[in-house]
């Protein structure tokens, strides 16, 4: 009962915070917030593939590359972002669908390696096909879109543009995981055999999980292009996929807010730990290991654990947990 009003209230509170966040801030903070939202979108997509459907994918950066390059090439050729972005997202959807096929055959680590290999192949194409992608030198100077005469060249207006896309993406994702599809994804993760026996088309569901997750990667890429106004193959190398994976797992995979929390931690951590100079990556790595050892369900899981410890009297716990994951 409690959560029927609590969840939307929290979401609205969060939205208000996001609306107010950039006011009076320096460009750097605004830029970092934009970058957080973009990576949240990418991580949300991976969370659908990994957290809800249980299919491991280490190619999210490759889909960001596909989205980013599509938008870069088209906007530099004079097309508007509104035209270019959906095309980039569509490419990712189709390629994600194709990449989903191996997932029908192999599971777990093997799938991880196939997607990892795919990521590197995309990197190589981006670097070697100079005529299309600009090769190792990348693409530079993508225009920022303007809407009805309002430009997004200013950092703050670009922030609100990103926020709109972010909110739409989050609402869509919420719709997906609440829909019968979303439940089917979870069934697939928990027990694929049982899911199939209940009449779910697991092939279809697996492929869709990949395709939608990849499309989110593409959307994030479509935002990176005008945000950074420079893309090069190195920004989409394998270790960026690992970074996005870290965001999902550190935040809490399978939780709706997990990827956003995880992206915030990964993006903001260097800021918070800047005083440690060169040691922040070491500290960060240790923290991730400790988190994984003591609470594999991520930071959101830590909250759950603490709550259970200090307020064990909450009897509807099982339901609550179910709710939080939806």
């Amino acid at each position: 009962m409690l959560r029927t009003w609590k969840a939307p209230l929290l979401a609205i509170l969060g939205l208000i915070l996001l609306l107010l966040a950039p006011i009076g801030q320096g460009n750097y903070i605004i830029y970092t917030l934009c970058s957080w939202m973009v990576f949240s979108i990418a991580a949300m997509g991976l969370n659908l593939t990994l957290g809800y459907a249980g299919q491991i994918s280490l190619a999210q950066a490759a889909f960001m590359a596909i989205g980013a390059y599509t938008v870069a090439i088209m906007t530099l050729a004079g097309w508007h972002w509104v035209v270019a972005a959906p095309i980039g997202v569509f490419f990712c959807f189709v390629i994600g669908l194709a990449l989903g096929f191996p997932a029908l055959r192999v599971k777990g680590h093997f799938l991880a390696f196939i997607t990892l290999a795919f990521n590197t192949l995309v990197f190589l194409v981006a670097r070697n096909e100079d005529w299309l992608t600009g090769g190792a030198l990348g693409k530079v100077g993508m225009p920022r879109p303007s809407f009805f005469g309002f430009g997004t060249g200013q950092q703050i207006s670009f922030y609100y543009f990103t926020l709109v896309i972010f909110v739409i993406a989050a609402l869509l994702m919420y719709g997906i995981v609440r829909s019968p599809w979303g439940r089917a994804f979870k069934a697939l993760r928990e027990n694929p055999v049982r899911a199939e026996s209940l009449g779910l088309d697991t092939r279809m569901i697996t492929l869709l999980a990949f395709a939608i997750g990849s499309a989110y990667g593409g959307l994030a890429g479509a935002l990176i292009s005008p945000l950074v106004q420079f893309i090069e193959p190195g920004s989409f190398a394998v270790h960026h996929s690992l970074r996005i994976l870290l965001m999902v797992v550190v935040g809490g995979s399978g939780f709706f807010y997990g990827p956003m929390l995880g992206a915030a931690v990964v993006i903001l951590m260097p800021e918070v730990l800047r005083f440690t100079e060169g040691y922040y990556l070491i500290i960060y790595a240790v923290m991730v290991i400790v988190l994984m050892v003591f609470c594999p369900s991520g930071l959101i899981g830590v909250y759950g654990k603490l709550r259970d410890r200090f307020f064990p009297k909450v009897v509807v716990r099982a339901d609550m947990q179910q709710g939080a994951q939806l």
Partner: protein
Amino acid sequence: MSQFFQVMLSGLSTGSIYALAAIGFTLVWQAAQTVNFAQGEFVMLPAFFVLIGIHALGLPLWLALIFGLIVAVIVLGVLFKQVIVQPMLPDGGLPLIIATMALGILLKESVKEFYGAEAQPYPQLFPLDAITIGGAVISVQDVMNLVVAVVVVIGLTMFLNRTRTGRCMQATAQNPGVAEILGVNIRRMVLYTFLINAGLAALASFLISPIYLAKFSNGESIGMIAFIAAIVGGFNQIRGAIAGGLLIGVVDNITATYITAEYRAAVPLLLLIGIILLKPEGLLGTKEGRAV
């Protein structure tokens, strides 16, 4: 023709390095069902223990090598198993993968911060003399790497098949439950596997650092190639690692020489995807053992 022979031979010697890195990887996979994403860093690190032995402790090379081996076995074997893998085995899967990724970052960054960001020269273990065979040149070092890789595989296979401890380890890898009922101390067997992995990683490190030069970021490329070699060769067979390693080494060189240098890195990946989809047990792997 002599060019072909040259790149073949060079590919074999590089491949033997990949094989050494891949063997330990298959061992850990068998014992703990874990993909160790820090395996590349495991191969990068021991060389620095040796450098510390030489420069900070003033040890002669042979003593520094022993020192490096012991420290590596303690840190990468005992500590890795007890502190990270053991507590996480019940959860297994993804969290453990993430933890090994973080461990990789930790090792890499620690070396960079505490030892240095630049590549370090590393003492040669074997003479650099070149041998000319049919117009192709190969160094003593290359031959020795290949010999060591083959000897390790044979020795390890014999250990696993002929000794009681080895067979207990195999039993543990194949079916921990039954092994435990039969009185095998499975915790100890798993620990042995990690010790052997650490020892092999150290050996690989000592052999490749004269060529790769000791650098904090070495693990990135070695780790990836080790995965590919292990999967292509066959995950559940130690001899698969050597076949996979040599194959990747040769294919890489032949591609770069005759087909395309820009896409040379793509060929092992395509090989990997093909193998996983068509013959997931690997070239030399057997279907028995663990289901994947």
